[in-house]
Structures are given as structure tokens and as C-alpha cells.
């Protein structure tokens, strides 16, 4: 059993909505179509070209609709076609793209539409996350409260200076100002202003946290012939990886989970990358709280353990640096939870297609899309390139 059976697959086009706290101007079907119509126009395909649809989003309680793919079938153009619905917590946008890719890689379909969304304003996400089931330890602190101890542990372990989180936040929000779709666009934000913002969950400050957004992201994926036909070049999928571990158990490393390290090792191996820092040109990494940039740089193998913050501090993760991280503004600028992972994957594709507009990384040929979810336990990632694997 070998990967020879795997067929080439590529991103043919991407689309996303404008991300806002409340998209009161559109219904759920309208929100999805905003992203889908843009992705299909970008890919230059019509409905007859789409063989299957794969939809992802985070918990159904967020919108109050059980299995919303069912009522969305009309808006998704899925009637009479196969429709799959993926849910892997916060990593779902990434794993949804990977399921769509596997439909092409397995030789089942030629072109697949994949879309992920969250319309958080339809309900209260904190409520959705706070229902206390019996026999489970209540966290009662939201995502920030859950992750703050991990961040504090990272700082203690690595000896990172305390302003690193603010460096990331200021960078990502300034990048977001270059992205017309971003929810938060703050060209004038500074490290000092971030550090002056309110402390929410020590050591995480207000300006170091992601917003709560309504939004959607879509991509059209295709086989080798479809990829070859993309004007200006498709984004070819070089490798994919997913790994999962339990939320809690004695000895679990919540600062750098083994599931993330294992997924990254498999990803780089399959992509033929031996030195990620020098071989990857741009990285869209799932950073909902600013300190996760240095944490994931280490978990992904861009830096040795305890060294990730040095890349951030030296400006190497800024646009123009050695490894621009989140040129789109990232999750810190827009966070429609179910779509956030797919946005990372789509932004990586846009970079290697040369379609990233004002946040384009010059000459980007290899890019990473990364997502994580649950209690830092679900990981999903891909490497895309401007050339076909092996070329």
C-alpha cells in the first residue's frame, strides 16, 4: 500500500466573505453563497462542473440548526449530488478541505466544491461552549481561560520576553489591514497599544485575542487536468496530515502536543521538505491567541523547542521576513470558527497562486495551511505549491 495510488489534486479557485461581527444582511444560505460564488468565479467553473460538495463547520449549537448541510442543500447546489458534512472542532475548516481533496486524490471526482462557515451572531458561542455535561470537569472560562495556562507555561518554559504576544498581535492586525475581507483592520495598532489593552485571561490581553465573526470560505478543488487548465497556475497539494489525541491525561504536553508534532513530521516527510524554515515561503497558522504563533512555530518544526519566539522577536514572521506568518491577518483578524481553518488553507493556496492581493508574499512558491481545534488536540494541515509535486 503506497502513495502511488494517490492522484494529483489542486486548488482551482478560492472565495471568502467579508467577515464581520454580525452579518445581518445575509441569511446562512446567503452567507455561504457569497463565498461559493466568489470561489466558483475565481475557479472559472459553473454548477455543472461540480461533482460533489463537502461542508464543514464547528458545533451545530452555534447556529441552532441540527446538521445545517441538509437545509443548505439547495443553496450549495448539491441536489442530486454527493454532500458530506465534516466536524472536527476548530480544525474543521482544514479537515473539510482534506476530505474534499481525498475525493479527488482517490479518483472519485474531477471537481469538488468545499465550503466552511460560522454565523456566530445567530446565537451565543459562549453559551454553546458552556453547557455542562455530567461527569466532566467544567472549565467555565471560555477558550481564552482554557488556553491561558498553556501560554503561561510556554512563557515559563521558553523564557520568552513578555511582549512577544503583543508583537504577534500588532503584526497580524496590521496584515489584516491589507486584507479587504478581514473583520478587524487596524493599520495603526502598535506593540505598545496592545500591551496597554485590558488583561482578559492573564497573560492574554484583549488585543491578543481573536474576534467572534460571521463568515465563510470556499474552494474549488480539481484533478490534474483541471489544475493544468488554471490560468496563471493552480495551487498543487503537496502533502496533507491530520492527527488527534485526547483532551486530557497525565503527562500530556499541552504546550506542544504530540499530535501536532506527529502531523507536522508526516507533512514535511510527504512534501519532501527537510528544512521547513528555509523551504516554506509563507505560512497561514491557526493563531487565535497571539502567543500561539511562537508555540506553533516550535510544534510545527520551524524552530527548536523554546526558540520560536526568537523568530517572532526578530521580525522573521512579518511580511518581508524569512517566514511570513499569517500575511492575511490570520485568526486574530477574522474568526468565523468553522471557516477559520479553511481560510488558512485557502490563503496558503492564494499565496502560491499569486492571487493574495496586497498581502501577497513576493515569490511565494510553497505555503503551509494549518488548523487546530478542541483542547489543542485536533490538527489538520496541508502544504501547497505553485508547481506539481515532483516537478
Amino acid at each position, binding site marked *: 500500500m503506497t502513495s502511488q495510488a494517490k492522484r494529483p489534486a489542486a486548488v482551482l479557485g478560492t472565495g471568502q466573505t467579508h467577515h464581520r461581527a454580525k452579518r445581518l444582511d445575509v441569511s446562512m444560505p446567503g452567507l455561504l453563497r457569497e463565498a461559493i460564488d466568489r470561489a466558483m468565479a475565481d475557479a472559472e467553473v459553473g454548477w455543472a462542473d461540480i461533482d460533489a460538495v463537502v461542508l464543514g463547520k464547528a*458545533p451545530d449549537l452555534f447556529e441552532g440548526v441540527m446538521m445545517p448541510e*441538509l437545509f443548505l442543500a439547495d443553496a450549495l447546489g448539491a441536489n442530486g449530488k454527493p454532500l458530506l458534512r465534516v466536524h472536527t472542532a476548530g480544525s474543521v475548516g482544514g479537515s473539510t478541505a482534506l476530505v474534499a481533496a481525498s475525493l479527488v486524490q482517490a479518483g472519485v471526482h474531477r471537481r469538488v466544491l468545499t465550503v466552511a462557515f460560522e454565523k456566530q451572531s445567530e446565537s451565543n458561542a459562549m453559551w454553546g461552549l458552556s453547557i455542562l455535561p455530567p461527569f466532566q470537569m467544567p472549565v467555565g472560562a471560555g477558550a481564552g481561560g482554557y488556553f491561558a495556562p498553556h501560554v503561561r507555561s510556554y512563557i515559563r518554559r521558553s523564557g520568552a520576553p513578555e511582549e512577544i504576544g503583543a508583537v504577534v498581535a500588532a503584526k497580524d492586525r496590521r496584515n489584516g489591514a491589507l486584507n479587504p475581507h478581514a473583520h478587524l483592520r487596524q493599520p495603526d495598532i502598535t506593540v505598545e497599544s496592545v500591551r496597554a489593552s485590558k488583561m482578559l485571561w492573564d497573560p492574554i490581553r484583549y488585543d491578543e485575542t481573536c474576534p467572534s465573526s460571521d463568515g465563510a470560505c470556499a474552494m474549488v478543488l480539481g484533478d490534474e487536468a483541471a489544475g493544468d487548465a488554471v490560468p496563471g497556475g493552480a495551487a498543487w497539494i503537496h502533502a496533507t496530515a491530520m492527527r488527534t489525541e485526547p483532551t486530557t491525561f497525565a503527562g500530556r504536553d499541552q504546550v506542544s502536543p504530540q499530535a501536532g508534532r506527529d502531523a507536522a513530521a508526516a507533512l514535511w516527510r510527504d512534501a519532501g521538505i527537510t528544512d521547513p524554515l528555509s523551504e516554506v515561503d509563507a505560512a497561514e497558522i491557526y493563531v487565535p491567541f497571539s502567543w500561539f504563533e511562537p508555540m506553533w512555530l516550535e510544534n510545527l518544526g520551524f524552530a527548536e523547542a523554546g526558540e520560536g519566539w526568537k523568530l517572532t522577536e526578530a521580525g522573521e514572521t512579518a511580511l518581508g521576513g524569512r517566514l511570513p506568518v499569517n500575511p492575511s491577518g490570520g485568526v486574530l483578524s477574522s474568526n468565523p470558527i468553522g471557516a477559520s481553518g479553511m481560510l488558512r488553507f485557502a490563503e496558503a493556496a492564494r499565496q502560491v497562486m499569486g492571487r493574495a492581493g496586497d498581502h501577497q508574499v513576493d515569490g511565494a512558491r510553497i505555503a503551509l495551511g494549518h488548523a487546530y481545534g478542541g483542547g489543542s488536540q485536533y490538527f489538520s494541515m496541508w502544504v501547497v505549491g505553485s508547481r506539481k509535486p515532483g516537478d
Partner: protein
Amino acid sequence: MPDVAVIGFAQAPNVRETPGTTNGVEMLVPLLAEAYQQTGLSKRDIGFWCSGSSDYVAGRAFSFIAAVDALGAFPPIHESHVEMDAAWAFYEAWLKIRMGEVDTALVYGFGKSSAGQLRRVLALQLDPYFTAPLWPDSISIAALQARCGLDAGLWSEKDLAEVAARSRADAAGNPFAQFSGSAGVAELLDTPMVADPLRRHDIAPVTDGAAVVVLAAEDRARDLVERPAVITGIEHRVDSPELGGRDLTRSPSTAAAGRAAGAEGVEVAELHAPFTHQELILRRELGLGAGVRINPSGGVLTGNPMFAAGLARIGEAAKRILAGTARRTLAHATSGPALQQNLVAVLERRD
């Protein structure tokens, strides 16, 4: 592209209520042990894991995360989840083996319907802007569908009772069935309506349960079991959610999936029909003639664990090939109101 085969199937007893936590993942633990025992595989031999379940049935967000604990997912595993019946998780696992990424996979589904009021919970699958606010529950919608067929002369109340009587009689041979019975058609027709024209026997029971199916690339499968059930076709389709916009007496998605999967010539068909009249719709759409043995397990009318029942149909269809009692079988799974979404798999013994 390697062909893929089913090599193991385990299911929990179908019961009205289990004593465990609301997500019901405890039901999985003995099933995993049984699946390993059947296939000779261990946890570390599994290349890919995929599950189907529902947060709304469990009444909380991210309910599937608890199942990762039941698996003992450390060292970390390659895993995914669909918020659908686990028959669609089975489809995702089939893809992973077809594309050559792994050569074994374990698929599981679980649902504890007793944690809430199922017929009201399922009303939340409807369009939230126009339909769900009217709270048409799942049984009422099925009753509308049954009435459409009665009015069109496609079936009679007696036809429906015959489906129920056969299912209950067959369930007597299935130790996992929630209930079985020997009541005749006349006796069943003498019972009161629950939602006109549906009587108690026309409606699948509310069930807690779980199922596990193990898959392998065909070459690997032959090393592990004597008679792997090779998947020769698997397809799924969805229809419009607009209840007033489609002919409820038909299921075009089932017909299209059946054609694409190659439904002709099967000896046994396990159909996921939670209402008696839906079995008649499915038989017609799949072109299953009088010679095809329908639901020898008793079907979901005698035990319907949400999000595991479709996968269990695949397991039941595979079981007959694994046991050497059939050569070509069909499994069907459904999702959504009034048979909106349907999956068909055809399994074969290859010598």
C-alpha cells in the same frame, strides 16, 4: 486504486435507554475490543479512524471529543468525524484506503437518543427561517409522506403493517434487536394511530446504540479474514430540503445512488427505513424484486440507534458475506427528513 473490504462488525444491544453519560461513548468500549478480536488487529494497526455522531442528540457541543478517550487515542491517531450517520464516516474511510493513504480503517457511530426528545430534536434539521419555527416533528413529517402514498394509491395501510409484521418476526432471530414480535397484520391494524396514518408499528423505536465496522484494502483483508466483504460500489446523493418542492413518494437520491453503486442482482438488502412506508419507497427506487431478502436483521423498525443505524446496515450486509451465507448484498443508509439524503453500498464475496 485498491479495492476495499469490510472485515469486522460489532454492535451494541439496541435498547430504549442506556445508563451511561449523555454522549453514550461508553457503549463503544466493548465494541472496540470485539472488533479487534474479530480481525486480529490492535489499536496500533488501525491506519485511519472516522466516526459519525450528533451534538444535538447528545445535547451539547463537541460531544464526539469524548469518544477519543474511549479509543485511547495516544500515541496520537489519524482521525476524522462527520456530523452525519456513521455510514458517511464509512464513506470517508473508504476514500482514505482508495487513495492509498492507509490500508486499514475503523469506523464507529454512536447515539444516545434517550438523552432528549428525539422527534422534537430532529425538527431542528429543518430550514430555521421558514419551517423549523412551526415545529413539525420527524414523525409528523413521515406521516405526511405516508399519506401522500396512500392518496396516490401506491400503498395501503395493510401493506405497511405487512412490513412491520415481517420486520418484527425477523428480529426474533437478532439478539441485538430492541424488540420483536409475532403479531399478525390484522392485529397490528387494530391498534390506534400515533400520527395518522402511522401506527406504533410503522415507526422505528427510540434507541440508544453504537456500531463499529473495520475496513481494509482487499489484499490486506484476505490476510485477516477468510471471506472479506468487498465493496464493489458505494455512492450517496442528497435531495432538496423543500418538503413541498419534491414528490415525497419518491426518493431520486436513492435511485441515483443505487444506479451508481450497481444495486442489481443482490440477494439481501439491509435498508435504513425508520418508517414502514419508507421501505416500500426504497425497494422501488433500488429496483429490488420479490426475490431479494429485505432486512433479515429486522431492520431499524426493531432498533434505530441514531447515527449508528446506517453504519449497522452496512455491518449487517457485510456480516452475511463474512459468514459465507450470501455472495452479493446491499446496504442503505438515510439521513434527514423524509429520506432526504441516501447512501447505497454493494458488497460482494470474491473467491
